[in-house]
């Protein structure tokens, strides 16, 4: 499944629903689709649109969904400059707890089984396994 998502934060919810509703039954448990996949994909799309494409309506974010036996891989790629995923502070430390931003990657890492980035840092792969 391939999806080109306009760089508009208002469409994130619809894009997430489109992907989630097109997963074949039994690929992941309904609970993992309804919460883990939806939340992690919304994070990845939101980050790509906000930071990768700067909410420029002329640009798009590409989503590719690969289905394997007992595994779903979702690639979210923007055409931005990329970022260093290792450079994000711990949002649970006391000095960061009341900050409005900075939890996205932390949340993704806790909701999926594996997170990988491309070399440039403008593409993320979310891996969710059955079970």
């Amino acid at each position, binding site marked *: 499944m391939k999806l080109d998502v306009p760089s508009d*934060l*208002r*469409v*994130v*919810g619809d894009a*997430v629903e489109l992907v989630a509703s097109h997963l074949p039954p039994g690929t992941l448990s309904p*609970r993992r689709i*309804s*919460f*883990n996949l*939806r*939340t992690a994909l*919304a*994070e990845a*799309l*939101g980050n790509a*649109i*906000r930071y990768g494409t700067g909410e420029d309506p002329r640009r798009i974010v590409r989503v590719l969904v690969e289905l394997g036996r007992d595994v779903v891989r979702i690639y979210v790629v923007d055409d931005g400059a990329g970022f260093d995923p290792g450079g994000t502070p711990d*949002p*649970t430390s006391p000095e960061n*707890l*009341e*900050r*409005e*931003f*900075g*939890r*996205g990657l*932390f*949340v993704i890492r*806790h909701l999926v089984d594996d997170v990988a980035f491309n070399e440039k840092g403008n593409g993320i792969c979310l891996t969710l396994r059955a079970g």
Partner: protein
Amino acid sequence: MRFTLKKDKSGVVVVGVEGQLIVGNRQELKQKVLDALEEGSRKFVIDFSKTGYIDSSGLGVLVSLSKKIREQGGELRLAGLNADLQTLFELTKLDTLFAITRTAEEALAAF
């Protein structure tokens, strides 16, 4: 996805979140609550019993609203989190920032 605001007889504003609270709709929630704060309301309950998922932008707006409400001498309580959402609050340690109750009725009774 929609937000509903109702004021109970003691003046507490109960905000219902149907669907999801994410990057695409968080500003709408923020503005509705800030409008109620501007109009004089000081006690708020956000009811997540009909909420499927919340992303980090949604969490962030709750943190921001809580601060603004506290600055005005008010209080924001959260209610109705399902097991997954409760886990999300715990792993981000935001459960330590908010008063969280099982139901909106319990939150109202605690004011």
